[in-house]
């Protein structure tokens, strides 16, 4: 786009002025919502939902004019005759045991399932083309979806939206578990939002925070829904959802308190002017087993109670379109504090950086008497770069020993001693009082076997095969080309000559 030319010459066109047909009420609407749930484990889950609804028959109209609904997806629906499309990208795994049931879970990696209209003749071809186009739109490797990882489920994955008949021939389902989700998938996803990431809840979607989380799942769901209660005509609904789980222990230095700014490094400043509804829900249901209570700041104007996923929940509701919510302080930074701080403990964790810095985990724990405490750390075996392997990689790789430093209460109260006068072996570690003494224990170093690839295997096979062939060939060749003739048994060999030499030296005639 190097050259731009101002348009100076205008061709006069005989365009008649035509009176304006009065603009009809907007046929599309946009709602956004953020649910923040403090999880039982102390983590915090944030679930965004953006819903664009369009009252239009996408597949029947020739010329398509888009307003809030993204053009890229709209064209897909009409070109490939889609009835439903569900696409999710997920990093991490939702741990139901610690985090409770999710609003919507998705498998790790990329998941795509699509219902086609029954007018589609070659479903497999459309499916292949669609996955290629989607891989272009979302910068993902969906183009690796082929017949080897595509299935047509017959019982599960019923259409979520409006459907007359469910012939499973028109359903395709594929998962790519290896897909790594990163910023390049989030950026095109954000571009589909009407307010992009400039206003409203989408301001919070800052990539470097969203991917420093224990769980990240973004999804796109397109489905037809009823336009009105009688369901005389259909509308299209696009739901973009994003769920993240923040590990507040890491970011918050061991405290379970959080605020919007601490999680997203942004605060809410203005509502999206295109949204008809823009709300933040904060789960303030107290967990009775912990006897802890929550305090939300600023105090909510309304609360919302309902039975969600089988339990009664209470939510504090903040409406961004309500001018009072934001106008007080020009921005909205929700904060949540736990009234009774958690147990006196200290955890310092410094994550490793690849090839630069090791992991460091320090914990201050008060151990109960007569108990066994196990600290276990999970690790993954990874392949190194091939130049980084030691000459004997099968020996294993060492992990440095853990250190246990403790003040052990002394059985016998020791007298406070004179620092300078006492023997040297007694004064290495300073002890404040005589009731306890200091010990530092080390564990054994750990020897970990890393997977070692056989670098030369293919070449070895080739060489070995070739050698076998060459040896067979060589002996065969020798057998055929060499001439064999019977050697006359010679009258004496080396022994005879040696004997003659000795005989000559002795002056005896040779043999």
């Amino acid at each position, binding site marked *: 786009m190097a*050259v*731009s030319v101002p348009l100076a010459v*205008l061709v006069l066109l*005989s365009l008649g002025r035509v009176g304006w047909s009065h603009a009809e009420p907007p046929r599309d609407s946009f709602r956004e919502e953020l649910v923040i749930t403090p999880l039982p484990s102390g983590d915090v889950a944030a679930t965004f939902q953006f819903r664009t609804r369009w009252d239009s028959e996408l597949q029947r109209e020739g010329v398509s004019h888009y307003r809030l609904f993204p053009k890229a997806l709209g064209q897909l629906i009409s*070109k490939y005759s889609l009835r439903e499309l569900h696409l999710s990208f997920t990093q991490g795994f939702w741990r139901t045991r610690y985090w409770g049931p999710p609003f919507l879970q998705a498998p790790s990696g990329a998941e795509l399932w699509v219902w086609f209209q029954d007018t589609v003749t070659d479903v497999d071809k459309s499916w292949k083309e669609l996955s290629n186009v989607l891989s272009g739109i979302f910068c993902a490797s969906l183009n690796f979806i082929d017949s080897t990882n595509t299935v047509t489920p017959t019982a599960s994955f019923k259409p979520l939206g409006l459907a007359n008949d469910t012939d499973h021939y028109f359903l395709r389902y594929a998962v790519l578990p290896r897909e790594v989700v990163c910023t390049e998938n989030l950026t095109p996803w954000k571009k589909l939002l009407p307010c992009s990431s400039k206003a409203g809840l989408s301001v919070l979607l800052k990539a470097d925070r969203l991917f420093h989380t224990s769980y990240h799942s973004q999804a796109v769901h397109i489905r037809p829904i009823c336009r009105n209660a009688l369901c005389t005509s259909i509308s299209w609904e696009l739901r973009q959802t994003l769920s993240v789980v923040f590990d507040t222990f890491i970011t918050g230095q061991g405290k379970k308190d959080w605020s919007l700014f601490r999680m997203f490094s942004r605060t809410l400043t203005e509502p999206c002017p295109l949204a008809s509804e823009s709300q933040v829900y904060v789960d303030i249901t107290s967990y009775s087993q912990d006897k802890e209570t929550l305090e939300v700041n600023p105090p909510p104007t309304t609360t919302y109670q309902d039975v969600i996923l089988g339990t009664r929940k209470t939510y504090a509701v903040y409406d961004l379109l309500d001018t009072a919510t934001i106008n007080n302080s020009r921005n909205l930074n929700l904060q949540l504090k736990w009234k009774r701080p958690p147990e006196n403990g200290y955890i310092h964790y410094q994550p490793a950086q690849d090839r630069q810095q090791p992991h460091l985990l320090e914990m201050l724990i008060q151990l109960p008497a007569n108990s066994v405490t196990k600290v276990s750390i999970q690790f993954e075996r990874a392949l190194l770069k091939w130049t980084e392997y030691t000459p004997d990689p099968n020996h294993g790789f060492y992990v440095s020993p853990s250190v246990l430093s403790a003040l052990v209460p002394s059985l016998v109260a020791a007298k406070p001693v004179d620092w300078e006068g006492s023997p040297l072996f007694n004064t290495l570690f300073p002890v404040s009082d005589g009731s306890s003494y200091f010990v530092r224990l080390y564990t054994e170093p750990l020897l970990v076997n890393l997977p070692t690839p056989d670098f030369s295997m293919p070449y070895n096979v080739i060489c070995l095969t070739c050698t076998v062939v*060459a040896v067979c060939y*060589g002996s065969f060749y020798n057998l055929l*080309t060499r001439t064999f003739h019977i050697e006359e048994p010679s009258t004496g060999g080396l022994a005879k000559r040696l004997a003659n030499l000795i005989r000559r030296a002795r002056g005896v005639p040779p043999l």
Partner: protein
Amino acid sequence: MAATGAVATDREVVRGKRAALFFAAVAIVLGLPLWWKTTETYRAPLPYSQISGLNALQLRLMVPVTVVFTRDSVPLDDQGKLPFTVVHEREIPLKYKMKIKCRFQKTYRRALDHEEEALLLGSVQEAEATLAQPNEQVEGSLTVYVISEHSSLLPQDMMSYIGPERTAVVRGVMHREALNIIGHRIIQVAQAMSLTEDVLAAALADHLPEDKWSSDKRRPLKSSLGYEITFSLLNPDPKSHDVHWDIEGAVRRYVQPFLNTLSAAGNFSVDSQILYYAMLGVNPRFDPASSSYYLSMHSLPHVINPVESRLGSSAASLYPVLNFLLYVPELAHSPLYIQDRDGAPVATNAFHSPRWGGIMVYNVDPKAYNVSEQPVRVEVDMVRVMEVFLAQLRLLFGIAHPQVPPKCLLSGPKSEGLMTWELDRLLWARSVENLATATTTLTSLAQLLGKISNIVIKDDVASEVYRAVAAVQKAAEELASGHLSSAFAASQEAVTSSERAFFDPSLLHLLYFPDDQKFAIYIPLFLPMAVPILLSLVKIFLETRKSWKKPEKID
């Protein structure tokens, strides 16, 4: 006993030699060709000589011109010579390897009765309406009517008239050299209506050397089977502006008729979208004198790129996209004007970027801000917008303003905004461009195959190449015989086939197969097998030489 032993040994030696020679022969006669055959890259035969012949192709563009003489247009003795045919041929000077000749084949005939009557009418428009039978006229052909010198059909000072269809009117003359003079005028008019040098130069802009045409010529969109036209309304400030545009009506009323006439040149699809919070990449400057903001001309190239990432590529088709953006500046930066090179505001407040599309800045009427409540509702005046966008669309397609010869009257535009002969001219240019593209593609493929030996040519790729070569030749023939529409269709087929062959993924299958890996795999097998054969061959050779030398010594 010893003698028989020696004979037996000799026989053994000879047998051994023969065995060694046989081994060598098998290895050379059977082994080498087998190895060669199993490891060679498959390459179907291609018409290399025909492809290199395409470079020297002579394009002869024939424009059939029918010249119709009315009763008093030329002296009587000249009228007696009618009907006859004159051919006027001229080479179009371009720095291009293809020689392009333009050939006007003028068929002179007398006017028929109904034509005489029509040309006696009061005005050109009426005459045209009576004469008009556009279905009869072939694409690319022209009809020129020669009227009498004193006819009142044209204004007195005008010598000729170019109509919106494929017709023109030329004033006759009573002179001894009448036919020559008229013939010259006809050529002038016909050139304006069909082929001129700059039209072809713009079409071939990609294939010509950079110096002459690149900078000042507006490069039109590359020829393609179809085009996608996207209208986008950019509203960077939805808090202050609630912009509405009746794009559906505007497309139906203004864009679709224009595209229907253009449909011979390709398939078109139109869509539109509204993008919020889409900013320009450049901060406009404030002009205190007029208390307005402006974008200077040198900053315009930087405007497009940041917007483009929001436009969204067209996911559903492979055709090139033309973007037309209507930008409603945010409240803080309005009114916003575009300045030209001299610093004066551009009247249309729009600019276009060749091969990409156009941008128009639409300022909100300042009176609208008197209403206190925000956002302000803005209804876009689509007539004003579409005038600009259609003018830009013409420029992007390379439909430039014709160079009218002196004293020539040009008819007003048709309601669709495109004259029939302008469409013909576009088709000429596109056909030539397609032929040039197809030839270049085929030549590059042939060159590439000569340079890189690892490229596989499958049979279907080869058949595409044959099809492309045949289509190029057919298009050239059709152009020479004046059949424009079939020539255009053949040239499109040539481009499609040649590109399909060139970009076929099967060409690359064996491309990344380095030689050192090949040797690493061959040596463990070939070395132990070849060494004994070679050694025994050397031994046999030495022995034979010795046995030849021995008899000499005896002599």
